[in-house]
């Protein structure tokens, strides 16, 4: 069992009055510098923290002279997070809806923060999270000869007899890994954290990422696979960042690494692993299926095929390619009640049966939705600007569910986010009733991810905003995959 780390550096409770605000923001700035942020970034952080606090003072406690809010500073792997929490009036998100002078504060927050999350907490409060990334050096900046991207010729294929070895990646291998990725992909690997050795080292040390590497007879890294966890005691892991040196394509390295990761997840008592596999990589899909990993969905336009972290010119247009979602059940999980929407019940049942998941499909007796709902939708928003992707995760529905999602979509579309995922809790009876409303807004079925939330499975919907898809035909490696793909494509057309 990995010990849970305490990330909190400080927590200030302040009375909601502007005269005390400079003391709060300057404290945050100094704490952030002490935690490793550069002066310049700490200055930016101070500005966004002020914006978040002003919003609380103006909108949460307009008439309450004794309102109190909290500012929490956390040092997370690779970043500083500042959360501003309050239990005041519900926020009217439409107030932040445009970039005129009254929406200026939120506009600045979006521009300056590396990540910005608005959450409604279960106890009726609100939490705004502002993140600044710590200044890690990229691998090219390290004082070593620059790694060069190489094209592997057929003649360079490694000898079939060469021995390779899979083992856990050590934090100190982070620099070598970044150089390996750079060699294979140049700066085109979609998950950019891998290029920052210090960040990767911290991710491993934090317990939120397990990784394995394959080394060859010269002890060079020739393969990599990671398992990311949303918390150290997550029951389901995200198998990701699969990379194989093309010289070793005939060594079944992916399969070896995946087996290693499955054993690792099993040893941790986890329920399963999910992963996204490029729809054009049939070999990888087949390897997954041979390990008893099966399809659970299709993410249209999930990856950027012409991705590059280098500066893009104004003409650059992302071209996207799709991924097949896979899941492997590793351990028996407790029986869960699920409420799939009526119109997706058949496909969802098939996915459950295929994976032999212990689920009882229920039908809700509730019909009058609005009367029973709480005021506010509990939602987490995560934006990944590098890949132009946003994740909206609803954990509970409130009366504002439709308005709230419309607001989010408008905001994300305005920011030119291309892919928006909307995750709905399948253990919540309202998912059965409300899913269609979201589909009317343009979302369509993507798949089911078992145990994705602490409370159980999610139904994932997807929305494409002005996406240019690669012309290549999507491929699946099994009949079941084909059935899901056709289902998703039909849902997309509607």
């Amino acid at each position, binding site marked *: 069992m990995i010990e849970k780390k305490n990330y909190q550096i400080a927590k200030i409770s302040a009375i909601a009055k*502007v005269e005390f605000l*400079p003391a709060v923001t300057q404290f945050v700035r100094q704490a952030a510098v002490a935690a490793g942020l550069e002066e310049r970034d700490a*200055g930016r952080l101070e500005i966004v923290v*002020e914006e978040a606090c*002003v919003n609380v003072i103006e909108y949460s406690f307009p008439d309450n002279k004794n309102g109190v809010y909290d500012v929490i500073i956390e040092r997370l792997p690779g970043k500083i997070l500042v959360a501003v929490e309050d239990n005041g009036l519900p926020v009217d998100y439409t107030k932040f809806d445009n970039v005129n*002078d009254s929406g*200026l*504060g939120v*506009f600045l927050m979006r*521009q300056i923060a590396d990540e910005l999350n608005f959450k409604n907490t279960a106890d009726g409060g609100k939490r705004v999270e502002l993140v600044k990334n710590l200044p890690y050096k990229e691998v090219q900046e390290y004082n070593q000869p620059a790694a060069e991207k190489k094209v592997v010729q057929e003649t360079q294929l490694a000898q079939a007899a060469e021995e390779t070895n899979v083992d856990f990646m050590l934090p100190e291998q982070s620099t070598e890994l970044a150089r390996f990725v750079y060699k294979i992909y140049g700066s085109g690997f979609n998950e950019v954290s891998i290029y920052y050795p210090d960040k990767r080292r911290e991710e491993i040390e934090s317990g939120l990422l397990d990784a394995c590497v394959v080394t060859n007879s010269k002890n060079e890294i020739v393969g990599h696979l990671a398992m990311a966890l949303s918390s150290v005691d997550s029951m389901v892991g995200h198998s990701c960042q699969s990379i194989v040196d093309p010289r070793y394509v005939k060594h079944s390295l992916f399969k070896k690494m995946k087996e290693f990761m499955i054993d690792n997840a099993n040893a941790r008592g986890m329920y399963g692993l999910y992963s996204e596999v490029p729809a054009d990589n049939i070999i990888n899909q087949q390897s997954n299926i041979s390990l008893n990993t099966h399809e659970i969905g299709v993410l249209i336009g999930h990856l950027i095929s012409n991705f590059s972290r280098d500066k893009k010119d104004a003409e650059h247009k992302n071209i996207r390619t799709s991924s097949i979602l896979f899941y492997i059940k590793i351990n028996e999980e407790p029986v869960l009640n699920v409420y799939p929407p009526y119109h997706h019940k058949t496909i969802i049942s098939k996915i459950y049966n295929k994976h032999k998941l212990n689920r009882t499909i229920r039908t809700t007796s509730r019909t009058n939705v609005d009367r029973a709902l709480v005021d506010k939708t509990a939602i987490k928003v995560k934006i990944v600007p590098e890949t132009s992707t946003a994740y909206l995760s609803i954990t509970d529905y409130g009366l504002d569910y439709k308005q709230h999602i419309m607001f989010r979509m408008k905001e994300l579309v305005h920011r030119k986010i291309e892919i928006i995922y909307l995750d709905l809790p399948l253990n919540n009876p309202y998912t059965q009733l409300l899913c269609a409303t979201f589909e009317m807004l343009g979302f369509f079925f993507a798949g089911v991810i078992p145990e994705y939330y602490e409370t159980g499975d999610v139904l994932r919907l997807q929305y494409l905003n002005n996406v240019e898809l690669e012309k290549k035909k999507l491929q699946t490696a099994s009949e079941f995959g084909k059935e899901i793909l056709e289902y998703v494509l039909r849902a997309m057309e509607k």
Partner: protein
Amino acid sequence: MQFSEERTGKFYVLNVSGRLDASTSSSFEEKLTSIIDSGEKNILINFKELDYISSMGLRVLLQAAKKVKVSQGSISLCEMKDNILEVFDIAGFTQVFQIYKTYNDAVA
């Protein structure tokens, strides 16, 4: 935050020092409003001693710029530190105000 004022050639100059944030923006607003109401049309704000600006400060500047525009006037800015200029850049305010690098450039 502290102010001092002077008249130089075509400009009415307002020197601002300290922090322009949520707690000081109202006194900045009062100061600017009183200058505009007294009939000054060409105002130069010298930010040489300004250490910090947040959106509350930007908002006051924008309102003042709108107000003075009605009487065919304008607000110019000079001597901005890099961190201040960066906030103007991000907010798109460098398009709204005439910005001079130095005080001498402005009054030349």
